[in-house]
């Protein structure tokens, strides 16, 4: 039986997807801005955050309305509460893309300290994890969600690698490199945090589908 609630849940899902696509775009655009040290591109990323913030508010409002008006149960309840959590993660991810863009503004006008190797790789990983987390939500695909969660340790390793290299090979050896190394250190940190949020989304997706809590319990995967 098709329910009126189903229509509302589809609208909520569409909003999450719209928000997810804006976030994916912001992460990609912030990386392009970094590669080119392009101020205009970085400014655009910063401006694009407003649309994500508005979608977050709209998703929260719609979710609260659905909880109040339909008193959903079981899978519906899990879907709506997870939609609220996922939108919070997506909003934070967009903020982190803005943080990256702000670091680009700090770096612009000076030559890059070193050729970018691991940071773009970490960015690609963050984009893949974000895309897969959202796909797992759309397709209710537990396998894909698990894949995202298992990728998180790769993100941590890459961030550690960037950090070690910048500190040991540059900051420790040349104090004048600090002002150009710190923004890169922070960018690696921002990207790794984006991966953490993608992981949160994947964990929420598993709860939504299977009612199984894997957050803080990776052994349950």
């Amino acid at each position: 039986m098709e329910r009126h609630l189903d229509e509302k849940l589809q609208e909520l899902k569409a909003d999450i997807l719209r928000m997810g696509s804006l976030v994916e775009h912001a992460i990609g655009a912030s990386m392009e801005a970094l590669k080119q040290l392009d101020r205009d591109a970085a400014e655009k990323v910063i401006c694009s955050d407003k649309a994500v913030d508005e979608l977050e508010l709209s998703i929260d409002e719609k979710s609260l309305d659905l909880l109040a008006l339909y008193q959903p149960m079981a899978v519906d309840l899990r879907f709506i509460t997870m939609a609220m959590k996922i939108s919070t993660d997506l909003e934070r991810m967009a903020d982190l893309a803005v943080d990256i863009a702000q670091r680009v503004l700090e770096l612009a006008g000076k030559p890059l300290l070193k050729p970018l190797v691991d940071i773009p790789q970490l960015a690609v990983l963050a984009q893949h994890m974000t895309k897969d987390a959202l796909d797992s939500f759309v397709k209710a695909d537990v396998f894909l969600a698990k894949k995202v969660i298992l990728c998180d340790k790769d993100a941590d390793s890459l961030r550690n690698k960037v950090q070690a290299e910048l500190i040991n090979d540059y900051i420790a050896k040349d104090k004048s490199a600090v002002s150009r190394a710190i923004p890169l250190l922070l960018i690696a940190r921002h990207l790794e945090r984006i991966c953490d949020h993608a992981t949160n989304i994947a964990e929420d997706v598993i709860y939504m589908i299977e009612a199984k809590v894997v957050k803080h319990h990776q052994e349950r995967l």
Partner: protein
Amino acid sequence: MNNVAFNITRMRASYGNKEVLKGITITILPNSVTALIGPSGCGKSTFIRSLNRINDLIPSFRISGDILYRQKDIYDQETDVVELRRRIGMVFQKPNPFPKSIYENIAYGLRIHGFTIKETLDEIVEASLKKAALWDEVKDNLKQNALTLSGGQQQRLCIARTLATQPEALLFDEPCSALDPISTAKIEELIHHLKKSYTIIIVTHNMQQAARVSDYSGFFLLGELVEFGKTQDMFTAPKDKRTEDYITGRFG
């Protein structure tokens, strides 16, 4: 087994040739609220009506299985049915006070059970009305005809009447279906308080009510107990697809 109120195994029940309960196995813990949900005709009312043998009044009714209350067979030939119904009280869908005074509604049953001293009756009437959260509203009008009370007050009077005979378990068969939301909230609050002293089973069509008032829930469908477990588990993560479909309004 002392911590079990009802222990029911393979309960089957029928009206004539029509089997309405097809092997129910369930354990009900004392001082808990168990909600039974399911679409009309699924057998949930037959189930609770079997627990204090109200169904005995229907000639074609047949029942089998192990149906134990406090380890005693409810359907044993030696069971004193009047005493059983005192221990396991029942509140029905529609408030059904006697066309007598508020006081007499409660005192009547007590007299049947041998209470005749006026002071004792007064004490029990007051205590029962207090337990049913009605005393403050009626204490100055105990001689008033009970039928002049509102629906919600009448239902609480029926609860007070049931409590007066000092039952151990209370069976509620859709106790709020004829009540407005305020009266419903009062009855739900009352059920919440009563579980400290009584074992409560409630049949309800209102899923939100089941979720609000109960500790355990059972989902009946076509005479079977499809799922039984902690209420919070059933309403957030039911195990059976049929339960999921029912509580999310996909059928029923």
